């Protein structure tokens, strides 16, 4: 079985895997990072979104070996200790989650969305999250959260 090496949430990891192992299964089953979810088998739902080398990607569409040498960030790596990332904090503040199942993917997508478009309009947020399905919230509060999260991320970036 091939061995794969990558950096996940700042930590160097490696594992022996079957060649067909998807990145999401490597993260969940081998690394125990169960915050990344699997909601479908057709790459349609976005529950599995992580960042690979700084860009959001559906981790069910990538073989783990394709991420060889990559920097991967999962939802577990977004907060700094107990301090939530501004986007996480905005989801909490604006009730952008209910059952929480879509949430990790939604937040990871939203962070990437704001990185590419620091001041997205409501329509741009709705279009930007088109690849993430939420069955609970009706998206109303997710949109609000992403708007607020974008503001907070920008403020943080200015400070930083």
């Amino acid at each position, binding site marked *: 079985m091939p061995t794969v090496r990558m950096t996940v949430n700042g930590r160097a990891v490696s594992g022996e895997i079957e060649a067909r192992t998807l990145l999401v299964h490597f993260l969940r089953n081998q690394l125990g990072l169960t915050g*990344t979810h*699997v909601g479908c088998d057709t790459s349609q739902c976005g529950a599995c979104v992580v960042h690979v080398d700084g860009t959001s990607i559906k981790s069910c569409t990538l073989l783990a070996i394709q991420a060889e040498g990559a920097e991967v960030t999962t939802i577990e790596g977004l907060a700094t200790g107990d301090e*939530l990332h501004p986007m996480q904090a905005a989801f909490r503040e604006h009730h952008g989650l209910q059952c929480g199942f879509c949430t990790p993917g939604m937040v990871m997508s939203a962070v990437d969305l704001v990185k590419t478009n620091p001041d997205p309009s409501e329509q741009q947020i709705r*279009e930007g999250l088109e690849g993430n399905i939420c069955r609970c919230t009706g*998206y109303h509060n997710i949109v609000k959260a992403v708007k607020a999260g974008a503001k907070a991320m920008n403020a943080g970036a200015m400070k930083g």
Partner: protein
Amino acid sequence: MTTETGIGAAVKRREDFRFLTGRGTYTDDINRPHQAYGYILRSPYAAAQITGIDTSKAKAAPGVIAVLTGADYDKGGLPCGWQIHSKDGSPMIEPAHPPLCKDQVRHVGDQVALVVAETYAEAKDAAELIEVDYKELPAIISTAKASEDGAPQVWPEAKNNICFDWHIGDKAATDAAFAKAHHVTKIDLVNQRLIPNAMEPRSAVGDYDRATGDYTLYTTSQNPHVIRLLMGAFVLQIPEHKLRVVAPDVGGGFGSKIFHYAEEALVTWASGKVGRPIKWTAERSEAFISDAQGRDHVSHAELAMDKDGKFLGLRVNTIANMGAYLSTFAPCVPTYLHATLLAGVYTTPAIYAEVKAVFTHTVPVDAYRGAGRPEATYLLERLVAKAARDMQMDQVEIRRRNFIPKDAFPYQTPVALQYDSGDYEATLDLALQMSKWADFENRRAEAAKRGKLRGIGISTYLEACGIAPSAVVGSLGARAGLYETGSIRVHPTGSVTVFTGSHSHGQGHETTFAQLVSDGLGIPLENVEVVHGDTAKIPFGMGTYGSRSLAVGGSALVKAMDKIIAKATKIAAHLMEAAASDVEFKDGNFTVKGTDKSIPFGQVALTAYVPHNYPITELEPGLEETAFYDPLNFTYPGGTHICEVEIDPETGITQVVNFTAVDDVGRVINPMIVEGQVHGGLAQGIGQALLERCVYDEDSGQLLTGSYMDYTMPRADDLPSFQVATHGTMCTHNPIGAKGVGEVGAIGSPPAVINAVIDALAPLGIEDMSMPATPLKVWQAIQSAPKKMSAA
């Protein structure tokens, strides 16, 4: 208590931190030592005889531990929790429902074999090596045609595929009302089948402990005790004290996780057989063919009116599709959760409804958010809208004229229910104002200038929830009680653990219930912890569905708090050397009336556990109480939903441009959570109206909408932001005044959307539109419309 955390405060959710940081524990996140994996081989045919199964190659495949088929399965079938009797008094047809099929498969996705292997991939690979000989049989899929003569039979014992033929109401009185009608409006409607699609696929881990003989099942369930009862007592015959069911964090349910499913029984049973924990998790494509589906009614309805548009009588005839087997609560959905709602918010004096339930070679149908009540509301509100057009009356006026007035409560309907409270004029007026109803024609004219067809639609709805008074539902066929339980454990230092039989799979009980208890006991929110979802921890509870958590589960907690306060008052009286009748409890303090003698809750708690100075001959030490709350009636949320759409006649695309919902949900504990519940329900209702439809091929019975490529889930850019408000009249018979909020959005909204679409298309002479109003359907209607669009 502090207003920032008490009843009515928009407290931020306590569960969010773990969900936002990836530390939730959903069933598929749970791994047991030495765990094996299960894969279920499912039928590729809608109807077929199994003439042979050869598992030898699969058994020899790498990593395989066991391959189990119907021939190996020696336990019971999945039970149905509700029995309906037909008009003639005969009980419904209740076919066997084995977790593994032996001789025949009856829908695509029916379970044929369970493969257990070291890894999931090995189990799945091995399943491909199982050779099943099928003799394909003709299938019946169509709801409307299932009971026609000559249709393929799903079950030999169900002649013409009829499960039951039921009715409610007074036929003679209804006939008499129609005889004196000035006008009768008629409508034919299909309430299409939906697939619930909670984002977390179902999952189950069965874990048998040889050392103790105990079984544990971790499962994606809305009601772990119900699963324990059904699976333990009826299916696997495991006594309840040897079976623990845990429903940890659950990623949405919407009804689909109420029911006891084959896979839960299979992993539990097989775990005992192979002596290893076994995990099974559905792939999404499996969920599409194995999660109970929703709706699927074909109805004809007629409304008799006098010359002023007053409703005189209503006749309804519905065919409801049950699928191939009876799922846990399927029979009550089109009957007692549907036909009893047909009075809606109106004073219609005579109603008669007939409901025929049929079997087809499709996935079983059961409760999905709203369950029967969206079907009733859609029927009634489409019919009322059509009646207004027939009578050339205003859509608002016809409703006002027929509303049950606010001083008429309690109000007895002709279809069994007695509404306790409501103010339909108030929710209507607020919704009209918020939606700027009065200015609509200006917006229509402005849209027309841009070449768009704009329409507005209204739905004034009511639902019955807070399910349910046990004696009442028992007399109607329920095989369970529908009370709820709650325990309050006060710890020696005054903090509290709350154990509830309700289950949260997104509703936020860890926050709302903590607010309720913190407010009731006058202690800080952070001193209250809420525990749910584990039969080893909580008292026997019935779980969450039918918008019952706060109205029934919350009420159980209030009853438990009453007991705590009663006992604590006696302890406080002893400490203050006063009579208990002179001691009152307020804001966390026990005070001797008319004095400044007072001691806090925490001191009483400590005394209960360190009973040195204690009325020990009259009172046991400790401070922990359990209450069972059986509601006296259903609760009756209601309100007004107004939808405004814009249709592009070039593409047929319908855009919801405004949506206003004003709901009476009774007492609100946490308005932020209540609004979130409404938003989610609206998305599902708008999804039904415009996007979602479960489609089977009528000949082969193959599911054509078996993935997210084919089944249109509402996405962020399909929906608008919503305007929501609540206007509460209190429930009169539970101690909180809560009515329930989980389902209102999905119940009230579909007819508002379709009425808006029809209103937009009305200038072209179009009078009907079925759900979902897809771009193709709308475009075709415009193309073949009696009138053309006038040039703007």
